[in-house]
C-alpha cells in the first residue's frame, strides 16, 4: 500500500516540476535582462562635481537618478539600468542604443535653465516649468521649444517681462546663452518659446526632453564611457547558451549513468534548483552578466556536489550492511555537516564580495550566494524527501550502485 502511495507522490512531483519548468522557462528567461557585456550597448559612469559649498549626499544622487531615468525613458530605451556607485557616482547602462552620441548628450547635461535680464539677474528658472515641447516654431522662425510655466513661474515671468519692456532677456542653459530676445510686451500667460539660429528639429527635441525631465541637482562629468558592440555578445551568446544547456544535460546523463536511481533523484532536484535560482534572480531584478554566469556555473557545481556527497555517504552505509532506509538516514545526517560547512565557508566569501565588490564582482557574488542557499535547501529537504519516497518503492540495492 505504502509503495503505491509513494509512487503516486513521486509521479505528482515529477509532473509538477516538469510543468513548472515548461511554464516558467520562457517568462524567466525573458525577464532576466542580459548585461551589457553580453548584449552590447552603452556604459556610462558619471561623477558628481562637488562645487564649493555643495555637498553631494545620497539624496542628491537618488534625485539625479530619477531625473536621468526620465531622460533615458524619453529616448525610448527599454529597461535602462541605473544605479549609484560609491557616494558620488552613477552608473548607467543602456542596452541596444542606436545613437550613443545622442544618448550621452542627453545624459550629461545638467539642464539648468535660466532667464536673466541685462544685468545678469536671474528672473525665472527651469524649476518653475510645467511643460516643454518641441514645435516647428511660430511664424517661420524654424524649430523651437515651447515652454509653459506653472502658476508661480507664470507670475515671475509676467512680472519680469513687464519690468523689462524694450530691454533684452537672455535664456541660459547651463550658464551658456542660447537665445537673447528683446521684450516687446509683457507676457502674463506663462508661455514662452526658445528658438535660435542653430536649432534643428533634433536639438529642439533633445532640449525639450531635458527641460521636461528637470535639471540635475548637481553637475556631473563623464568618468567612463564605453560603447560595446552588439555583435560582440550576439553571435557568441546564442552558441554559448546552447553549449551551456548541452553541458547541463551531460551532467544529468552522467549522474543517472553513475549513480543510477539517486542520479534520477539528482536530475529532478537539479531542475527544481535551476528554476529556484533563476526565479530568485528575476525577483531580485538581477542582470545576467558574464561573471554572473560564472557564479551560476560554480553554484551548479556545488549543488551537484551536495548530491554526490549524499550518495557517496549512502553507498558507504549500504556497504556497511545497513538497510536502505537506515542508510539514507545515516548518509544524510553525515552529509549534512559536510555540506553545511563547505557551503557556508564559500557563502561567507560570497557575502563579503557582495559587501565590498562593485560591478562584475558583485554580480558574481550575488548569483553564487543565491545558488548556495538554494542548493542547501533543495539538497537537504527536497532530495532527501524524494530519496525516502523512492526507498518505499524499491529496496533493490543494485539501483543504488552497491
Amino acid at each position, binding site marked *: 500500500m505504502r509503495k503505491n502511495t509513494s509512487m503516486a507522490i513521486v509521479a505528482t512531483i515529477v509532473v509538477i516540476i516538469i510543468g513548472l519548468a515548461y511554464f516558467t522557462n520562457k517568462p524567466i528567461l525573458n525577464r532576466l535582462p542580459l548585461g551589457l557585456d553580453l548584449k552590447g550597448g552603452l556604459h556610462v559612469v558619471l561623477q558628481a562635481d562637488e562645487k564649493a559649498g555643495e555637498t553631494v549626499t545620497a539624496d542628491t544622487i537618488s534625485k539625479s537618478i530619477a531625473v536621468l531615468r526620465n531622460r533615458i525613458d524619453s529616448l525610448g530605451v527599454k529597461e535602462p539600468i541605473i544605479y549609484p556607485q560609491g557616494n558620488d557616482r552613477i552608473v548607467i547602462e543602456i542596452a541596444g542604443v542606436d545613437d550613443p552620441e545622442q544618448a550621452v548628450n542627453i545624459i550629461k547635461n545638467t539642464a539648468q535653465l535660466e532667464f536673466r535680464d541685462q544685468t545678469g539677474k536671474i528672473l525665472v528658472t527651469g524649476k518653475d516649468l510645467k511643460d516643454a515641447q518641441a514645435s516647428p516654431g511660430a511664424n517661420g522662425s524654424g524649430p523651437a521649444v515651447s515652454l509653459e510655466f506653472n502658476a508661480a513661474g507664470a507670475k515671475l515671468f509676467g512680472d519680469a517681462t513687464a519690468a523689462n519692456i524694450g530691454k533684452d532677456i537672455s535664456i541660459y542653459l547651463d550658464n551658456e546663452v542660447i537665445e537673447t530676445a528683446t521684450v516687446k510686451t509683457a507676457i502674463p500667460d506663462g508661455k514662452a518659446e526658445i528658438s535660435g539660429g542653430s536649432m534643428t528639429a533634433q536639438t529642439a527635441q533633445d532640449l525639450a526632453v531635458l527641460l521636461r525631465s528637470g535639471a540635475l541637482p548637481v553637475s556631473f562629468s563623464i568618468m567612463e564611457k564605453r560603447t560595446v558592440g552588439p555583435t560582440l555578445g550576439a553571435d557568441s551568446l546564442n552558441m554559448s547558451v546552447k553549449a551551456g544547456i548541452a553541458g547541463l544535460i551531460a551532467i544529468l546523463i552522467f549522474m543517472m549513468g553513475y549513480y543510477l536511481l539517486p542520479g534520477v533523484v539528482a536530475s529532478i532536484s537539479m531542475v527544481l534548483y535551476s528554476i529556484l535560482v533563476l526565479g530568485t534572480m528575476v525577483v531580485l531584478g538581477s542582470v545576467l552578466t558574464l561573471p554572473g554566469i560564472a557564479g551560476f556555473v560554480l553554484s551548479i557545481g556545488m549543488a551537484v556536489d551536495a548530491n554526490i556527497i549524499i550518495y557517496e555517504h549512502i553507498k558507504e552505509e549500504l556497504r556497511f550492511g545497513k538497510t536502505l532506509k537506515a542508510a539514507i538516514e545515516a548518509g544524510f545526517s553525515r552529509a549534512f555537516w559536510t555540506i553545511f560547512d563547505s557551503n557556508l565557508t564559500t557563502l561567507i566569501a560570497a557575502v563579503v564580495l557582495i559587501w565590498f*565588490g562593485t560591478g562584475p564582482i558583485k554580480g558574481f557574488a550575488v548569483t553564487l550566494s543565491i545558488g548556495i542557499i538554494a542548493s542547501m535547501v533543495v539538497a537537504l529537504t527536497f532530495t532527501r524527501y524524494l530519496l525516502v519516497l523512492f526507498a518505499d518503492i524499491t529496496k533493490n540495492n543494485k539501483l543504488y550502485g552497491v
Partner: protein
Amino acid sequence: MQFIERRKWFYIFSLLFLIPGIISMFVQGFNLGIDFQGGSVLRYKMDTAIEAPAVMKTVQDLQLVSEVSVQKSADEFYIRTTELTQEQTQQITDTLKAQYGNIILQSADSVGATIGSELIRNAFLAVLVALVLMLIYITFRFEWTFGLAAILALFHDVLIVCGLFSLFQWEVNSAFIAAILTIIGYSINDTIVIFDRVRENLRMKKKDPLPTLLDRSIMQTLNRSVNTVLTVLMPLITLLIFGGATLKIFVMTLLIGFLFGMYSSICVASPIYYEIKQRG
C-alpha cells in the same frame, strides 16, 4: 595510495608551475586589459590580408596618441591606444576606411584608469576580508591548523593561475577576476569536504597514525572529488568547444582553475596540514 608519503613529489610538481609563474610576474608582469589600464580599444572587422604592423603604422602616422598597439585575430583587429576622444575615434576610422576600403568599426571601448585601480583595490580588500572570515569560521568549526592549510592551498591555486596568465601574457580583465573568484570558491569548498572527512576520522576511537588517517580520508572522498570536478567541467568543455569565441579565454581560465583546485585539495591541502601538525 600514499599521498602524504609522496608529498615531496606534489611539492615539486606545484613548484614547477609556481616558480616560473612568480618569476614571470616580477619580470614581465601582466598584460593588463583595458579594464585596468585605462585607454581605448577599437575593434574593427577588416580584410584578413591586411597586416597588423601596417595598420599600426597608419594609426601612428596620425599622431593622435602616444601609444598604439594592434592585434590581429583572423578578420578582427584590436587597436589599443591611450585614451581617445569621440572625434579621434572617428578620425582613425575614416583614415582606415580611406586606406583599406571595406572596414567596420565593431566596438569602441574607453575606460578611465581610476576605475581599474579602484576595482583592484576593492577586490583585493574583499578577498582579504573573506580569507580572514573563512579562517575564523574554519577555526571555529574545525581547528586553526585546518584553516591555515586550506587558505595556503587557496593561495597556491590563485598564484598558479595568476602565474600562467603572466607567463603566457593572457589579458587580465574583469572576466579574469570573475574566474579567480570562482576558483577561490571552488577550491575552498573542495578542501573543506576532505577536511570534514579527516575531522570525522579523527573522532574515531581507534586512531591510526596521522599519515595513514589522512591518506584514508583522501581515498574515501576521492570518488566524490573526481565526480564533482567532472560534472563542473562538463558545461565548461561544451562551452569551450561549441561556445562563442569571446568566452574562450574565460572558460579556459575556469577550467585550469577547477583542475588545480581539485589537485590542491587532494595533494597540497592535506600535506600542508600534516606539515603544520608535525611542527606544531
